[in-house]
């Protein structure tokens, strides 16, 4: 793996996404629809911070599940998997797709944050910004680290759309619980130190998932 080819592959994916908007448009619409549904359900209720933190990551999870698998499924569907196999090593492909998925998830969390702050202007108030930022960054990395290899697996199967959330959810449970707990702390205004334990778990999770995926990716990518 070399940094320059990884970077070139990331650029190709970003470029291609901006041109085709395969994932992007679906993601944006999904976020809007999901948040609207939540608004219909809550009406004028004032949800507690833990409910809001939960709903925040529910939207992120299901939106990510509708979009992140595209990174591999689109290569598979267009028949460009073999082209990539010829020009790049498996680890280059893995890290490039990991970076792309992290960026996608991170922009997703930003979009959901802005939307929540507008529609729940009274109850979704981030009191400890540092905790929230670290949670969102580590959360995006964690999401991407687990769902990238699952996306590569799903791309080889024949019931892709339904299989992706089914395979990802059990792997992501630990992450979801931890980021929900940290987000609640950020909304409640607990000091940054209060969420350190959560961040340690997130860091451990990211390291374990990225390391494991890196070692196993070859078996998924190569036929």
């Amino acid at each position, binding site marked *: 793996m070399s940094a320059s080819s990884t970077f*070139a592959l990331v650029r190709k994916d970003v470029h291609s996404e901006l041109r085709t908007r395969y994932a992007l448009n679906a993601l944006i619409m999904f976020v809007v629809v999901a948040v609207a549904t939540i608004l219909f359900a809550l009406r004028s209720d004032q949800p507690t911070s833990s409910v809001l933190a939960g709903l925040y990551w529910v939207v992120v999870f299901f939106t990510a599940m509708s979009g992140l698998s595209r990174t591999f499924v689109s290569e598979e569907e267009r028949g*460009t998997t073999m082209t990539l196999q010829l020009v790049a090593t498996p680890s280059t492909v893995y890290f490039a797709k990991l970076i792309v998925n992290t960026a996608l998830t991170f922009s997703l969390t930003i979009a959901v944050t802005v939307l929540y702050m507008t529609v729940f202007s009274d109850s979704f108030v981030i009191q400890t910004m540092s905790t929230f930022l670290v949670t969102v960054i580590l959360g995006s990395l964690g999401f991407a680290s687990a769902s990238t290899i699952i996306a590569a697996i799903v791309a080889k199967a024949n019931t892709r759309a339904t299989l992706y959330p089914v395979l990802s959810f059990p792997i992501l449970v630990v992450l979801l619980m931890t980021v929900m707990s940290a987000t609640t702390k950020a909304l409640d205004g607990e000091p940054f130190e209060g969420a350190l334990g959560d961040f340690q778990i997130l860091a451990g999770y990211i390291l374990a998932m990225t390391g494991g995926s890196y070692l196993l990716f070859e078996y998924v990518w190569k036929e």
Partner: protein
Amino acid sequence: MTSVSLKLDGVSKEFNRRLIFRDVSISLQGGDTLAITGRNGSGKSTLVKILCGLLSPTRGTLMYALDGKDIEVDAIKDHIGLVSPYLQMYDEFTGLENLEVLSRIRADRNITGETIAEALKNVGLWDRRNDFVRTYSSGMKQRLKYAFAVLHRPGVLVLDEPTSNLDADGIAMVERCVREQRSHGMLIVATNDADEAIWCSQRVVLGDEKV
């Protein structure tokens, strides 16, 4: 120019316990040429994938050497040019962009704007270089695959169904590529067409034995 040699020893491939082919042994040196023939479904494309290191054989071994030194099968990819119906270019990029992007990912410093321009001219796509590949006809896509395959002057050129979708002019282009490749490296052609098989001096016939 590095010289590539390859040795296939008793290679068999099975999918879902169905034997595709059995006990294929090949040994090729620098400028050798090999035609792989056999009826439909005899595993020509599968053998091509194995030769390119994209698929591992069920049994048997594949060894590549560069200038006499054995190398990992994964490392051979930089020295292979492949044209195959299973290998596609990116629809949302132009012909020129495809070659640029793929060379950048390959991190090949020898590829410059001129090499790419020359490759596009050779396959007759220079005038359409700034059009998206999705607007190309299937013959033009096939030409673009040739430009991509020979761009880095590979030690081994592997052609799977070399002239599919091509017109007479395209076939002449392929023949130029083949001549050029024979002058400096190894050529492997998987085909059912006798006119294409005669480009090569050696031959492997798949699917002859009763399975």
